[in-house]
């Protein structure tokens, strides 16, 4: 029982790291990306190759390498954002998603082809072997806290304020002298770096890197985590990851069909579209707001005047 709970916690933490940056991309940069799983896979294969060939298993070394590779890949896939937006970028990101994963599969000498790679030496940190589930949680929690903390810090920086402003009014931002395009690409790269880190952790825990785990379905699953939780809050993707990341694992435990994951993901997306455009966190927020004070029309008008209400609320 304790083992099951630990595993579920590990899945949730890993995927939280993977989608934290994505929430910035969807929420603030307002780009819909369906290639996150491919970058996650790049991180995953970075560990698989480095550990599998006995180059290094030290996470303090593997993670920075994965960050560089994942960041570079995101930069390449993110640069088209300078020219494309909306539906055009969604389709482009799907094309990138396919190209990256198929590229990994086709590079058989490195990736082992369609079945992928498995059975690596366990990860280490400065000689400490990470073997038990509890060890993994000890590693994951600080990394998640670090990622969360740095994102919070980023949001308070001028850079982060520009991000929030970009979501509300891009024209005003441009008038303020900030280049929205550069901002957009940099957020995108940030999200990719975090996904790559999560990929390393995923594979070092599961001991397997299989291209089938990084497909379009997984990209959709990741974006669902963000949307269900609520894209504009940092706690949102965490909620989404807790709900969705371990889904295949516990469905397997209770012997339900593997297709249940897809059914639940699909239904959740439909529910979000119809009833919860701001996700669970958005629901909680508006609930709090309603508790703290009555929202009379005068209050609302005042909020609009003071800029507290975003264009989203008005919509």
């Amino acid at each position, binding site marked *: 029982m304790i083992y099951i709970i630990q595993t579920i916690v590990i899945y949730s933490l890993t995927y939280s790291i993977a989608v934290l940056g994505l929430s910035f991309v969807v929420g603030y940069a307002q780009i819909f990306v369906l290639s996150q799983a491919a970058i996650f896979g790049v991180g995953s294969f970075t560990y698989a190759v480095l550990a599998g060939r006995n180059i290094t298993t030290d996470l303090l070394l593997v993670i920075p390498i994965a960050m560089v590779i994942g960041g570079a890949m995101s930069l390449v896939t993110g640069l088209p954002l300078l020219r494309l937006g909306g539906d055009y970028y969604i389709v482009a990101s799907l094309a990138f998603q396919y190209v990256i994963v198929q590229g990994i599969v086709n590079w058989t000498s490195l990736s082992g082809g369609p079945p992928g790679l498995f059975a690596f030496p366990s990860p280490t940190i400065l000689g400490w072997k990470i073997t038990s589930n509890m060890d993994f949680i000890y590693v994951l929690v600080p990394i998640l806290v670090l990622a969360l903390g740095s994102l919070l810090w980023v949001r308070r920086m001028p850079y982060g304020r520009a991000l929030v402003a970009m979501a509300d009014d891009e024209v005003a931002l441009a008038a303020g002298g900030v280049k929205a395009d550069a901002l957009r690409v940099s957020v995108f790269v940030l999200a990719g770096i975090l996904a790559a880190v999560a990929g390393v952790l995923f594979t070092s825990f599961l001991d397997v890197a299989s291209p089938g785990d990084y497909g379009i379905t997984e990209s959709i699953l990741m974006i669902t985590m963000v949307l269900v939780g609520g894209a504009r809050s940092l706690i949102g993707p965490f909620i989404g990851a807790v709900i969705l990341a371990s889904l295949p694992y516990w469905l397997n435990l209770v012997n339900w069909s593997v297709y249940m*994951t897809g059914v639940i993901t699909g239904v959740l997306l439909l529910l979000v579209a119809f009833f919860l455009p701001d996700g669970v966190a958005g629901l909680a927020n508006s609930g709090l707001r309603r508790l703290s004070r009555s929202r009379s029309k005068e209050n609302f008008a005042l909020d609009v005047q003071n800029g507290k209400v975003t264009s989203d609320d008005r919509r």
Partner: protein
Amino acid sequence: MRYLQILVNGLVTGSIYGLAALGFNLIYGTTKIFHVAYGSVIMIALYFVTSISLSGTSVYWAVAVGLACSLALGGLVYVVLYAPLEKLGRNRTIIFIAALGLATLIEAVIPWVYGPQPLTFNLPSLNTVVFIGKIAISPLDMAAIVAALVLSLTLWAVIKWSTFGRQLRAITSNVELGSAMGIRRGVIVGSVFAVGTAIGFIGLTMQSMSSSVTPVVDVTYTLIAAMIVLGGGAGSLVGSYLIALAWGILQNGVTLWVSADWANVIVYLAFLALILIRPLGLMTSTSRRML
């Protein structure tokens, strides 16, 4: 001779993709709804056809039933999913999320009901290769080329000359003015979804008859249709037809000279290059009209 054979094979593949793009283009060009569940909805009809065809019914009857089924499903998706969302005032991203949800749902339910293994139509007579000169081509291949050409021309003529086409162009260019003239947008858009889905169904059925039906085929089908439509210029029937043919020829060429593993990778990269050079597609008119 080999080049000519590749060209013909490419035309066949391209024609099927052309049909995929034609249906998607009709929907996307008219409504600007990114109907990402396009292939998935078609696949429901396709699996229906396959199962009744495998139970011994004549394949032509099965296809006729499937065509009716896809018309109904296409219209139903608009009535049940998109129209209510538009009424709720949801923005385009949210509507896309709903479509993504529907696609994910269908993709999970179909292999659950029919099993994950591929199903094959047993149609030896349609797939027997005949030689025209030295070019090998099957009756099904010829049908695909003719169907793509005829349906494209018919749709073009309908949009250009019929009353329905005029109304469709009216609501595409200006919804408010169109409604003021008494055009019922819901009816027009509903039938656009129905017809678009049926055209896509014809393409996917032809593709499946020469190979097999698998539960994942719809993702690629939608993706290819979307890429061709955006690459050709949204709403441009000529643009997407040209891109579709080029796509088929390139794919067949790469499969032969490089390898099948790299075929889609290279074609997708070509699409990315095209869309970066011309962000609004190959053929774009300044006034974003249908045609």
